[in-house]
């Protein structure tokens, strides 16, 4: 065993605790982490503390998940869980291409592109109401949706123009639809990935 094993144990414990405390406001999270850190270093600096004691010291402190649950309850903060907003947001961004195509067919061709931008902002409403995704995630998601809502009709328009000249090609149409759907599918995949990270328990094994 390397001599830093107990240091690694402490580091790993604090890393788990930091991850578990994620739902708390920043100031409180920092304060709790500082207190626990002081506790550990104070205990370890006492005379006669052996390396093996670190394990029992951390055990007495308690499971980070349990500690964080207690902290959330103490401060009246709930761990957010995926709900109706998240499900709707994922569904809307996944079905985004259909919505955009339907809107393009249903609305008169004179409808200006800002109507489409407005439509994509409406697509982003359930996402913005979610308490799970961070502001950064919502900005990325909204930009992707706006990009998709402008890009897909634009590609369809290009296709329309070329098809008059060269004749219809099913392969070209498929390509246009697939490429135009990429921003929406990227939004869905990104939001799904972030939701799993932010709402579920962090991995118990530390990354190397």
């Amino acid at each position: 065993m390397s001599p830093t094993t107990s240091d690694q144990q402490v580091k790993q414990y604090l890393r788990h605790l930091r991850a578990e405390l994620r739902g708390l406001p920043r100031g409180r999270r920092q304060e709790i982490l500082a207190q626990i850190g002081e506790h550990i270093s104070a205990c370890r600096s006492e005379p006669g503390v052996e390396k093996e004691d670190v394990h029992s010291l951390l055990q007495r402190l308690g499971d980070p998940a349990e500690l964080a649950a207690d902290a959330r309850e103490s401060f009246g903060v709930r761990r957010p869980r995926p709900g109706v907003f998240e499900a709707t947001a994922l569904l809307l961004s996944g079905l985004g291409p259909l919505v955009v195509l339907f809107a393009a067919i249903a609305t008169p061709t004179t409808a200006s592109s800002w109507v489409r931008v407005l439509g994509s902002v409406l697509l982003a409403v359930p996402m913005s109401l979610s308490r799970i995704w961070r502001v950064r995630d919502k900005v990325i998601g909204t930009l992707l949706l706006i990009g998709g809502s402008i890009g897909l009709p634009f590609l369809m328009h290009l296709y329309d123009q070329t098809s008059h000249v060269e004749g219809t090609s099913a392969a070209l149409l498929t390509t246009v639809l697939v490429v135009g759907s990429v921003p929406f599918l990227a939004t869905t995949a990104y939001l799904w990935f972030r939701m799993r990270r932010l709402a579920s328990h962090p991995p118990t094994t530390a990354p190397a």
Partner: protein
Amino acid sequence: MEHAHVDALPGQLRRGTLEYCVLALLRPGERYALDLVRQLGEIDGMVTSEGTIYPLLSRLRRDGLVETTWHESSNGPPRRYYQLTPSGREKLDQFAREWVRFRDAVDSLIVPKGSS
């Protein structure tokens, strides 16, 4: 075994009274955080783990019931001490009066009659 003991009490009841136990331990004067946590951890059935006392101390400080001061230590880093604020003392005294009444009321219902 100790944990089964602790789990038998509703979490809210334990949490609600724990904060006053912390205030009561600070009544004689300021205490080093580690001593405070250890003493509470040693009382049977008081807390599930030592760590859970820190979020509580943090909240008590934000509510203005305790305050922290730093003291230099002869060996090692400065130490964080906790002490009661006047409003913390007042809240503790209020609770202590109510608690005795409440405890007697609960005892009169829960403790079987005739047992000494």
